[in-house]
C-alpha cells in the first residue's frame, strides 16, 4: 500500500488567544475522532506534532548559517506531520478533507512518500 505524508501548516498558530479552554478541548476532540477514523479504516496513521509555540533553528547554505526559529507566516508554519497508507493520491487527499486543521486557519499538504526498491 502506498504511503503518503500529510504536512500540516498552522491550525491555531495565528490566533491562539481566540479560543476558550472549552473550544480548545472541542477542537482537540475532533483530532482524536479523525485519527481514530483513520486507524479504524486501516490507514495506519503515524503522527508527529511539533512543539508549540513554534521554535527551532534553520541551517542554510554551504556556510551552514544557523538562524533562530522558523520564519514563515504563522498560517504557513509547519505544525506537524502524519503518514498514512492509502490506495492513491486521490484517496489520501480525500481523507485529508476530514482534517480538523482546516477549521482553524490551517492546511494539509498531501505528498506521496518515495519508497526505495
Amino acid at each position, binding site marked *: 500500500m502506498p504511503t503518503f505524508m500529510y504536512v500540516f501548516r498552522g491550525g491555531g498558530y495565528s490566533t491562539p488567544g481566540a479560543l*476558550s479552554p472549552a473550544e480548545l478541548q472541542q477542537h482537540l476532540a475532533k483530532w482524536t475522532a479523525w485519527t481514530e477514523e483513520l486507524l479504524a479504516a486501516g490507514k495506519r496513521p503515524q503522527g508527529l506534532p511539533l512543539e508549540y509555540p513554534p521554535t527551532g533553528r534553520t541551517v542554510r547554505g554551504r556556510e551552514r548559517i544557523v538562524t533562530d526559529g522558523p520564519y514563515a507566516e504563522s498560517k504557513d508554519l509547519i505544525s506537524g506531520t502524519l503518514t498514512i497508507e492509502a490506495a492513491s493520491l486521490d484517496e489520501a487527499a480525500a481523507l485529508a478533507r476530514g482534517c480538523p486543521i482546516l477549521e482553524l486557519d490551517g492546511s494539509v499538504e498531501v505528498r506521496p512518500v518515495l519508497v526505495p526498491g
Partner: protein
Amino acid sequence: MDEAREHVEDLFRRESARLVAALVRALGPANLALAEDVVHDALVTAMHAWRHEVPRDPAAWILQVARRRAIDVLRRDRRLDDEVPEASVDGALSAEADAENQLSMMFAICDDALSPETHVSLILRLLCGFSTAEIARAFLVDAGTIDRRLHRGRARLQALGALADVRDAVAVRARQPSIEHALYLLFNEGYDAGGALCADALRLAELLLGASAVEPSTVHALAALFCFSAARLPARVDGDGALLLLEEQDRRRWDGALVERGVAHLGGAAAGDHWTRWHLEAAIAFEHVRAPSLAETRWTRIVEYYDALLAHAPGPVIAMNRALAVCEARGVEEGRAALDALANDARLLRYSLFWAARADLERRAGRPDDARALWERALSLARTDAERGAYQRRLRE
C-alpha cells in the same frame, strides 16, 4: 451527573481554573494576566501535542507544561517586579494546595468594592475557565457588559498585594455572605439559561465547605438547594427542548443521586443555630423532590416556607412563587388573587415566567382566551428557546 465523564469533558476549563489560581497565588494578583497567558499557552500546546494521541494523565501533562512556562518567565522574562522563588511555584502547583488556591481566589474575587454581578463574572472567568463570550451566552447578556465587569474586577484584583488568606477566620466570615450570594446568582442564572452552570455552582459551594474558617451550615443549605434544584434539570424540557411545567415532568427522570447528596447537605445545614434564606429555599426545593406527585406535594408547608422566606428576603419572584404554591394549597382563585396583587411590580412585568404563570392559571380557571393573550405576552418576553418552545406549544393547543 456522571462525575468521571463530566470531569474529562470539562478538563481544559477545570485545569485552566486550577492552574490560574495556583499561579496567581505564587506570582501575586498583580501578575494575573501573565498567569492567564501561561495557562492558556499550556492548553494550546496540549491541543497541538495531543492531535494523534492523548497522554495517560492529561491533567499532569498540562500542569508540567504550565510549570515549565512559568519557570521560564521567572528566569528570563523579568516581567515580574519582585523575585518569586521557583519553590513557591512548585508549592502552589502541588495537589495539596489546590483547594486553598481556588478558595483564596474566590475570597479575593468577592471583594465588597465590586458588585455581585462582577463577582459572578469573575468566578466564571477565573474559577470556571469560561471565556467572555461563553459567560455572555450562559447569562443571556451581551459580551460588552461582561467585558466591562471583568475589566473592573481584574483591575481591583490586580491591585491586591496577595490573594485572600482563607485561614483568617474573621476575614473569611466577613466575606462569606457575598460569596454565597454570588454562587446563588450563578446557580439561578445558570438554571434559567438551561443548567450548564449549575454543576459549577455546586462544585464551588462544596469547595467552600473545605475552608475550615467558613461557617458551614449556611453553605450546606446552599449546596442542598443546588442539589435539589439541579436534580430536576433532566426532566425540565421535552424532546424538542421546550420547558415543561412541573405537572408535566416525568419525576422518574429526576436525578436520585443528586437528591441524596442534597439530603446529606441538609443534615449539615441543620447544625446551624438559625435559619437563613438558603435554608428556607432548600426546604422548599426538598419538598418538591420528596413528593411522589404534584398532588401529593405538601403545598401548605411550602406556602409556610414561602411566608417565612418573604419575611427574610422580600422579593417579587419569591412572592410570585408563593402565589403559585397558594394556588395548589388553597385553590386556583386564591392563587390568582395573590398573583394579580403583584401585577404592579415593574420587575415582574418584564419577567416572562410571571406572564406564563398567569396564563396557566387562566387556563386552569377555564378561560382559554385570556390565557392565550397572556401566553403571547410571555412569548414576547422569553429569553431562551426552551421558554419560547413552551409558550408556542401552549398557543398551538
